[in-house]
């Protein structure tokens, strides 16, 4: 006699499973017996990986979209989105250039023409990068106008400025990678500005370019900065930034 269990029965059996219980900690909304009570809401936040970012309760005024406009969150989310799309792009890109072996540029063309979703992912990566620079700027302006940099949040503002600069540098290093005319001449303009630094101008320019002028070394150097070094530094500062938000008493305000 075939005894087919109902959907509820299946769900119950699944949730009673040892493996299932090991994945979803007590208090998870996916566990059996979650009820929409204060206790379970608190547990849901507390037993979630997002507890690293959010406390159990937040100030109610901070929930209003018109208070934060979700700008910091959007910037962070764009960073994640850019990491994901960037990993995809790395599968199809080699940072090699030089006379007769313009591999980087050929890889770009190949990505656009032959890779499934390649063009779409590249577009998302590029537009997302511009958007991230923009939302980070806006986030800074929002924080200023709310006076959210005031004690005890002074240092977190400093961390935020560092994050903004790293974001700019990340965007700029990525700008070179397509190795087209747009890329190298934009970088030419940018690095020549850095060359005007007093005293160390030449050295800074040399370090940025990996030589006296833009070449294959520059591409490799900026590629490593773009995909590894800068995201690593950014992640560390992001961790400090988020940690300080909680330690400094959560979101600022109300006005």
């Amino acid at each position: 006699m075939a005894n087919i269990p109902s959907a509820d029965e299946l769900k119950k059996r699944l949730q009673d499973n040892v493996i299932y219980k090991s994945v979803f900690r007590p208090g998870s909304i996916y566990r059996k017996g979650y009820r929409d009570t204060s206790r379970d809401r608190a547990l849901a936040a507390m037993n979630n990986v997002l507890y690293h970012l959010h406390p159990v309760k937040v100030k109610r005024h901070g929930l209003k979209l018109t208070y934060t406009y979700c700008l910091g969150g959007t910037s962070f989310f764009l960073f994640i989105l850019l990491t994901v799309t960037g990993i995809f792009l790395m599968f199809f890109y080699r940072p090699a250039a030089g006379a007769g072996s313009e591999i980087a540029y050929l890889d770009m063309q190949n990505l656009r023409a032959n890779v499934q979703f390649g063009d779409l992912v590249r577009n998302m990566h590029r537009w997302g990068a511009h958007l991230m620079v923009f939302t980070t700027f806006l986030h800074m302006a929002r924080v200023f106008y709310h006076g959210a940099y005031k004690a005890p949040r002074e240092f977190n503002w400093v961390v935020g400025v560092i994050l903004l600069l790293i974001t700019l540098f990340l965007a700029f290093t990525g700008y070179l990678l397509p190795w087209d005319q747009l890329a190298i001449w934009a970088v030419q303009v940018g690095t020549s500005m850095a060359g005007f630094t007093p005293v160390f101008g030449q050295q800074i320019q040399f370090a940025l370019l990996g030589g006296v002028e833009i070449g294959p070394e520059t591409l490799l150097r900026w590629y490593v900065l773009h995909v590894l070094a800068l995201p690593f530094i950014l992640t560390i500062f992001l961790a400090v930034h988020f940690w300080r938000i909680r330690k400094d008493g959560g979101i600022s305000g109300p006005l």
Partner: protein
Amino acid sequence: MADDPGIDQETFDKLVAEGQPERVARAKAKAAAARKSRQAEAPAGDGASADGAGGGETPDQVQERVFNELVAEGQPERVARAKAKAAAARAKRASESKPEPAKQPAAAAAKAGGATAVAPAGNGAGDGNGTGVALTPEQRQQRVAAALAARAEGGPHERTGGVETKYAGQEHTHRLLAMVPPTGIQQIRGKQDDKAYTWPHLLTAEFLCLMAVTAFLFVFSALAPAPLRELANPNVTPNPSKAPWYFLGLQEMLRYWHPMVAGVTIPLILGPLGLVAIPYLDRNPSMQPERRKFAYMLFTMFLVAASALTLAGSFFRGPGFNWTWPWADGLWFTL
């Protein structure tokens, strides 16, 4: 006292004829009937209200009357019910807090005395029974005497229901451990924020925000292709050559000042260092916009200047990075 006042048929017919919804008309008619019956009872019921209700209406009646009145006013039924309930609760409390005349003075004194006896470290100077009436010295003496008598008898402390137990060899039920200033308690209350649970309120909002950003980026990327020019060639300089848009404000400044100023001093020293220094220079603790006019002004000037320079460098600079009008000469701008 009064039975269900019923419906005042006359009022009901009139209101329905006026075009009011039947529900409203019925409620108003009910209220009218209640008013009438109350008026009729008022002279007679004056002396007859010795059943402890005081105001002539039991809480239940208050509830019904307020409900009908509110519905007649056009309030939603749900609101009316809640308000009526609240009114009934108020009425009940009012009738309970009325002093009961038949109370024996000795018992009252014992009660008050008990209260002072069990709370010697509290607001001892205040009146133990909470009436707020200042006592004459004679009354106070009486109370003390009564309290002492009550203790001598070993009677239970009425105020606390006799919860305190004395242990062997113990003289007092309470010890004074610390004197706490009232502000110490009040400050804790003042710090309580209006808070909401992260799950589901914040996380839902964030999730929606992320979905919106993803959707926007997805659609935009599907529609707008990112630029890819011809292969890099160091020997062919495009005209104009422009930096990425976020550096175009700086490139624009290079047109006006020496590179040492426009390329280094402003973007590297005044920019980041100035931003970093903001919280340490601005010692005004206020977060209110009207008290931060100077800071607002400075920062807004900074933002406007940065935006103007970036826009100028992006859209108003053409070949040779010379000034062009985008509507006349076209755009030289690539993201």
